[in-house]
């Protein structure tokens, strides 16, 4: 099916208008807030009201892993095909992934203080592995800002993005290899409204973060174009 005859495929993310995508993301996040406020039980029998932050902690955590995973795939694709778009998709995914990782760490830390009495528990493998992943991807952004030549920047970022992807598996397997008493491997949400809110929130944040991702991708494309034009102007200027 040709694009000119039938138009672009309906599920192609690039064809969805960005303002509408962004508005939908925010609306769904507000709907998640409403679900947390009015649908789920106000307090858990074990840890009280503080469990409510889970409905924001979990969506950010799972989407942060998703974004870093896509960044890793795009990096490997760039090393294979050398398409400039794949590098920019990877870079923008890392930027938004770092944002969601900050949300995960902050909400996790607040929850830890309420549930365990400590802001930071060094013996918790999942807490530590997420923090390590966050620092690794901050390094990715530092690497991009340190290399000026676009082709070299894309190549180096793709190599580092591919190595950094190993972190996702470290995070995933950390509590399975080193089980601890405090961090739940699987949160027990007994009420169906809790499970609904958990996955509705995950979907809502996914829509919002993909809107951010597209926005950052457009900005990076524009920045690359400005850099290219700058080089061309410098070449013809007497």
């Amino acid at each position, binding site marked *: 099916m040709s694009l000119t005859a039938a138009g672009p495929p309906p599920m192609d993310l690039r064809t969805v208008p960005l303002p509408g995508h962004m508005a939908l993301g925010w609306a769904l996040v507000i709907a998640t807030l409403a679900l947390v406020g009015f649908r789920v039980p106000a307090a858990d029998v074990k840890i009280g009201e503080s469990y409510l932050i889970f409905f924001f902690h979990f969506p950010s955590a799972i989407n942060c892993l998703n974004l870093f995973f896509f960044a890793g795939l795009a990096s490997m694709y760039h090393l294979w095909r050398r398409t400039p778009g794949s590098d920019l998709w990877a870079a923008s995914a890392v930027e938004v992934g770092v944002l969601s990782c900050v949300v995960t760490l902050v909400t996790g830390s607040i929850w830890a203080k309420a549930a365990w009495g400590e802001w930071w528990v060094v*013996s918790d493998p999942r807490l530590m592995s997420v923090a390590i992943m966050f620092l690794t991807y901050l390094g990715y952004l530092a*690497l991009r800002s340190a290399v000026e030549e676009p082709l070299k920047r894309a*190549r180096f970022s793709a*190599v580092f993005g591919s190595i950094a992807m190993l*972190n996702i598996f470290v995070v995933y397997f950390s509590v399975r290899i080193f089980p601890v008493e405090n961090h739940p491997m699987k949160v027990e949400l007994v009420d169906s409204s809790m499970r609904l809110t958990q996955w509705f929130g995950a979907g809502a944040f996914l829509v919002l973060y993909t809107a951010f991702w597209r926005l950052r991708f457009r900005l990076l494309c524009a920045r690359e174009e400005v850099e290219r034009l700058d080089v061309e102007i410098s070449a013809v200027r007497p």
Partner: protein
Amino acid sequence: MRSIRLVAAIIRWDVIREMRRRDTVPNMILFALLVLFVAQMGIGPDRGPESAAGRVGPVFFWITVLFAGTVGLARAFSVERESDGLGAILTSPADLGLFYLAKVAATWAYVMVMSAAALGIYSVLFGFSAWGKLGLILGAEAVFSLAYIAVGVVLAAMTSSTGGASEVLLRILLFPMMIPIVWLTLRTSERLFEAEIAGGALGPPIRPMHFFAAALAFDTIYLCAGYLLFPKVLEE
């Protein structure tokens, strides 16, 4: 067989150059000495498993091995770029993956010399006396060093071409990726150094055999990733 000869030739070339210039191993050892010397000033005169030296000494030791090792890693490629050795490698028909393995082996040998010297300095400054575990500690140093060198050589090849901030950037990229192996090493160090580290805050100690299995798994993954990705870094 030809590949092994090529790797051996590159290692020999690297070692001969280091023996002539003496600018990597002595600098690493000096750096390790300085870090351990400064660290021991803050822990007081008491020695033994229950003292501050026993509780935080092994932490300083492993951090010293990691930090001093990055001095060697940073030199590994800055020397190549200064002498245009990379240009020669790139124009030769040699497999860049083999060049990577040779570079890892040479740097690993330098770091092992530094680690052994660091253990000697540590035993003097921190009162280390568990000599019965010497073999296990050297084995732990070997697998620990191999993990960060396997990744570090790839990262050093990248950062050496970024100009003035290359050494800082190398550390920024390398250290977060090494935290899992540092954490594993610290958790097994209670058995190796016969001391309770950080008041047991890191969790229960890991048996040395489990540590070696996990560390070797990290080493293998990092070496395979490095072998595959290193040629992508150097191609122009």
